[in-house]
């Protein structure tokens, strides 16, 4: 019943499509990078930092606490970045707020992190928010965020006052606007040297960008 058909050309064509498609995906995996103006990294609020002030390279992260890719980055890649680049003194890490309008619960989370920052606990709240993202996005956000504040040992009356005053809302909006002016349009985005990288990248890519920035610094 079946006709004998030579399938070799078909398999070759299919292989070519597979390789071309795979190459397209791999090429997108490095993150989209653009060169930003030299003066543009400055902003009214410099962000929350980790690491040594004397580090020769700064990585600026623009992130949204409700963004799943940002949480994924914080959980999967950030520990490596901290241990291999930040804790070794090579990199100073800076977090800047970039709440996306499509995320209705992001403003509360960014405000909570900023209020925790007033008590020197920004990074503790940062980790609570990203590691528990699924819970507070789906559940009662304010109640859960208050719970995280208690867990990290904040002085609760001061934290609640800061939240109800919406003390940092304007500053967060200004930070986001400054990011937009730099060309940030999605999260997470990173600025390393004069490169703006949209999307999460691997630890190897971070090291590559940091080495490039170190070489550029040495040449200056």
């Amino acid at each position, binding site marked *: 019943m079946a006709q004998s058909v030579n399938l070799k050309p078909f398999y070759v064509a299919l292989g070519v499509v597979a390789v071309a498609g*795979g190459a397209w*995906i791999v090429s997108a995996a490095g993150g989209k990078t653009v060169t930003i103006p030299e003066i543009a990294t400055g902003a009214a609020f410099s962000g929350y930092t980790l690491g040594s002030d004397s580090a020769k390279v700064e990585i600026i992260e623009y992130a949204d606490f409700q963004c*799943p890719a940002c949480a994924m980055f914080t959980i999967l890649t950030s520990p490596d970045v901290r241990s291999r680049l930040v804790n070794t003194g090579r990199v100073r890490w800076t977090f800047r707020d970039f709440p996306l309008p*499509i995320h209705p619960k992001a403003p509360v989370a960014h405000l909570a992190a900023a209020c925790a920052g007033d008590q020197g606990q920004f990074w503790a709240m940062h980790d609570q928010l990203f590691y528990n993202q699924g819970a507070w996005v789906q559940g009662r956000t304010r109640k859960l965020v208050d719970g995280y504040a208690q867990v990290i040992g904040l002085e609760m009356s001061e934290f609640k006052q800061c939240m109800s005053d919406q003390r940092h809302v304007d500053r967060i909006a200004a930070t986001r606007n400054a990011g937009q002016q730099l060309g940030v349009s999605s999260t997470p985005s990173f600025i390393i040297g004069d490169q703006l990288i*949209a*999307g999460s990248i691997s630890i190897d890519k971070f090291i590559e960008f940091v080495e490039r920035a170190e070489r550029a610094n040495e040449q200056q």
Partner: protein
Amino acid sequence: MAVATLALFGFLLAMYLWLWKIGLLGGIACGTGSCEAVQFSEHAVMFGIPVAFFGVVGYLGLLITSLAGLQPAWIDRREPAILLATISGVGVAFSGYLTYLEAVVIEAWCRWCLVSAAIIGMIFLTALAELWARVRTEALFTGSSA
């Protein structure tokens, strides 16, 4: 062969959307569409799994089944065609539901999701046509040998 080719395109597309969703790719190339709005919505994850991953698994299943159906041991049998029509039928229903969510609930369009919906629709129609042709051929042979 048409199903295998379409399934490969669908697989690559779903893989792209899935890798982007889990944060391994840069900004999504979406033209004037609203891929980010759709992909960031709560409907982009089901049972804790990114929806695009269901596409990766589904298209891979279709690709493997269609290639298996081309092998000498299976080429005269109708089971691969039935399986292709079944998997793609489920895919069409799922894509239809996702397209409904885009139109009515999220109110934003992800053009890659629409391309995927078109691909799965074409696979379903092709698989149905193939199954129908096979059934007719079998009926003719059965009729002529009776």
